[in-house]
């Protein structure tokens, strides 16, 4: 009874959240058009913010699809990049405009696929061609991925834990090799990328002169991702979802309860792959091309990282972690790749840098020490964190006093070093991920309840 109430409340909250998000995205993207140049620079349409939002939307869908498999069904699969590849290629092959086939497939003298979905519905410039053609191609991308998942699943789903992981990883590698095989070139364009496909930017509404009047390029991936995630959430809350969780907790017990293991595992695997395929199609739209070289095991690890950081078995955790991860790696830390040279020891930027650095160190250290307030060997961990923080603060003080104008260490590649250190810290201090297996809505409601109880007393 309580469970049901909670999930209903959660569903309503999720629905409202999704609607608010969608509206917010449209407003954000068009704010600069409404207000002119009065908006801060990070709201301009060229800002990195929208790139992060688009990539975040795509990746969160893939992360959630992986979570469905790894977090809710307990099947440890590492094939996500392979299914994304299938989706991306299906989408790209079906949507290259007829007029561009000659240039795109220039090594093979044109494509063996004699049609293009958007062109069938009137071309990628018309709303019908764009919406129907693209939607159909994305859907087919998902279906192809699901079909392959079914074929792959027949032999490998019988395998247990790590063996399953390595087998699915292997299948992803095999799929990649097949798509790079020269004799398939007239379809897959061999190793070359398939370009000139409809992208998110095609969804911007323009007037007759080609000036953009309404930007929907960020709205589109959000819409698709939210729709798909909503379907996954509904699935998880259905009887199938409960069966999945039962399998995760204990396969033998689940079987004893009358759950058909093979059927449910296959179902979960195919559905997860379907959404990974949809995510792959969106990813192809995001990067403007499809190329097999990109969908390596590194990509799967990246997504697994996001899932675990967000919390295995938490949908909202996966989504939040995705956006933080993408923003961190693509946007916020990029300044670390360039040397930072201040004009003079008294430049205001230098002061800002010092203050921000110190604040970040103090906040991070406080957070980490506070996280580790219980358990064995806590003192040493806290002492270590404190020591590191003090060392960093001592350095920044020295830097501030010495009047140096150049920040040391910063050069190409430093961004990724810092990023991996941040990841290690998160992994070591947030063992169960940011949200554990809770949902954001659970946390918000339980908090309110606690507050209410206090008030009642």
């Amino acid at each position, binding site marked *: 009874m309580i469970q049901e109430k909670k999930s209903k409340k959660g569903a309503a909250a999720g629905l409202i959240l999704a609607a608010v998000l969608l509206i917010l995205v449209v407003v954000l993207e068009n704010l600069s058009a409404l207000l002119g140049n009065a908006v801060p620079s990070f709201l*301009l349409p*060229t800002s*990195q913010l929208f*790139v992060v939002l688009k990539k975040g939307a795509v990746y969160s869908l893939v992360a959630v699809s992986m979570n469905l498999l790894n977090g809710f069904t307990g099947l440890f699969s590492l094939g996500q990049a392979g299914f994304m590849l299938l989706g991306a290629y299906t989408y790209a092959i079906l949507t290259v405009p007829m007029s*561009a086939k000659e*240039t*795109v497939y*220039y*090594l093979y003298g044109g494509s063996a696929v004699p049609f293009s979905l958007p062109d069938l519905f009137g071309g990628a410039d018309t709303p019908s061609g764009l919406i129907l053609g693209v939607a159909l191609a994305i859907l087919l991308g998902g279906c192809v991925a699901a079909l392959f998942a079914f074929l792959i699943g027949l032999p490998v789903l019988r395998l247990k834990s790590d063996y399953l992981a390595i087998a699915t990883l292997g299948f992803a590698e095999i799929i990649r*090799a097949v798509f*790079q095989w*020269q004799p398939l070139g007239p379809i897959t364009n061999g*190793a*070359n*990328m398939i*370009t000139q496909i409809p992208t998110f*930017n095609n969804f911007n509404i323009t007037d007759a002169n080609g000036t953009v009047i309404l930007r929907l390029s960020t709205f589109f991936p959000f819409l698709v991702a939210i729709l798909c995630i909503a379907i996954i959430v509904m699935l998880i809350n259905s009887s199938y979802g409960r069966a999945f969780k039962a399998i995760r907790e204990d396969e033998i017990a689940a079987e004893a309860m009358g759950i058909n293991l093979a059927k449910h595992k296959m179902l979960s695997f195919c559905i997860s792959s379907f959404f990974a395929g949809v995510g792959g199609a969106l990813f192809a739209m*995001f*990067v*403007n*091309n499809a*190329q*097999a070289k*990109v969908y*390596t095991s590194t990509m799967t690890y990246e997504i697994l990282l996001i899932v675990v950081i967000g919390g295995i078995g938490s949908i909202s955790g996966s989504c939040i972690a995705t956006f*933080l991860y993408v*923003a*961190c790696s*693509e946007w*916020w*830390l*990029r*300044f670390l790749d*360039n*040397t*930072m*040279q201040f*004009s003079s020891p008294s430049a205001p*930027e230098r002061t*800002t*840098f010092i203050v*921000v*650095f110190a*604040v*970040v160190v103090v*906040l*991070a250290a406080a*957070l980490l020490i*506070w*996280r580790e307030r219980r358990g064995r060997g806590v003192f040493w961990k806290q002492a270590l964190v404190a020591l590191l923080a003090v060392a960093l603060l001592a350095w920044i003080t020295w830097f501030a006093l010495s009047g140096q104008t150049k920040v040391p260490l*910063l*050069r*190409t590649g430093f961004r990724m070093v810092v990023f991996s250190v941040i990841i290690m810290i*998160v992994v070591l201090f*947030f063992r169960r991920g*940011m*949200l554990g297996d809770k949902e954001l809505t659970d*946390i918000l409601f*339980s908090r309110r309840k*606690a507050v209410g109880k206090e008030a009642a007393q």
Partner: protein
Amino acid sequence: MMKKFLASALSAAMLLGLLAGCGGGSTSTPGSTSTPDASSADGGSGAENVIKIGVFEPFTGDSASGGNKEYLGMQYANSVTPTVEVGGVEYTVELVPSDNGSTTDKAMTAASQLVSEGVSMVLGSYGSGVSIAAGPTFGSAGIPAIGVTCTNPNVTAGNDYYFRICFLDPFQGTVLANFAMDKFDAQVAYCLGETGNEYDQGLISYFEQAFTAAGGQVIKAFYPTNNSDFNSYLTQAQQAGADVIFTPVSIAYATQIISQAASLGVDIPILGSDTLDDNKVLEAAKDTDIQLYVSTFYQEGGNPEFDEGFKEYINTADGALEANGGNDTISAVSAMGYDAYNVALEAIKAAGSVDPAAIKAALWDVTYDGVSGHIAFDDVNGDAVRDTAYIKHSTNDGVSWELETVQTVS
């Protein structure tokens, strides 16, 4: 639960702090090797007369070696000509680098990073795949880009905003095929490339076209990404009776292939493309009997003044020697980077404006006599009108090339 929520909130705050740090760091000057003048010139980055030129290069990943060297040429050009006159006002040129990581999925975000920094135009990239992938991003932002050494035809085809100053793969493939025929009387060529690399595959198929048209026979082999064992391929080439081995691959693979060929005692000449013109490759060929020939854009000694100035820059500027791979051998890509920067300045001068659209309109008619030869753009795709390639061979002393011939194709 409360604690989890608080924890997430705090971590979000921490990340926001970093975001603010990003804002605080907006005074960053480009690259690791900025000279003292460049940085002091940048001291007034708050001042209004600055024009930003984006540098879209791979600083990490497979092609990092080439990307660093190309950028080095631009930095040198920037230190020689740090300002440009636009409509009677003097502007300081600021290079804004962005790392595309040699992969097509990072290319998109790196490109939009440049767009969001508000650059007036873009130079780069080394490697065709990333340039093709980033093309639409620059195109939709209306920012013109000059490809420096991306030789694949698809970089400029169908993209109005991409220009380039180097020759194209159909040309390069033909030149090398002709060279193999003329110099070695080759009948059988063994082509070795990386699976899934646009550049390798394109060049090999153009080479094949020209070579078979002239009556030769081609054997193709592709190795998977991250492969390091080339012994089987090289033995296979020997067994097949190949007269030349054509291997237009990235630098890291090229060094592997050459050192393994040396230890196998392969006496077949190895032909490479412009990517192999790199001092890491020379290092691998040091003290071996390998016959290594490459086609390229520039040969050291072509412009003594540039050579001297650039060598001094490599040896004195902070971090430049490291970026050039540890010695001061001049790579052709550096010369091309130097030329690209100057072409960009010419375009800005001709446009008389820092507006990307004006610069793009002016670019079509820009001509420039660079260290790598005369540069002009054709009217179709904005490709360079070039009909010369330098072919040079390694002297196997580890540091120098010797000019073999200058090839042209009508």
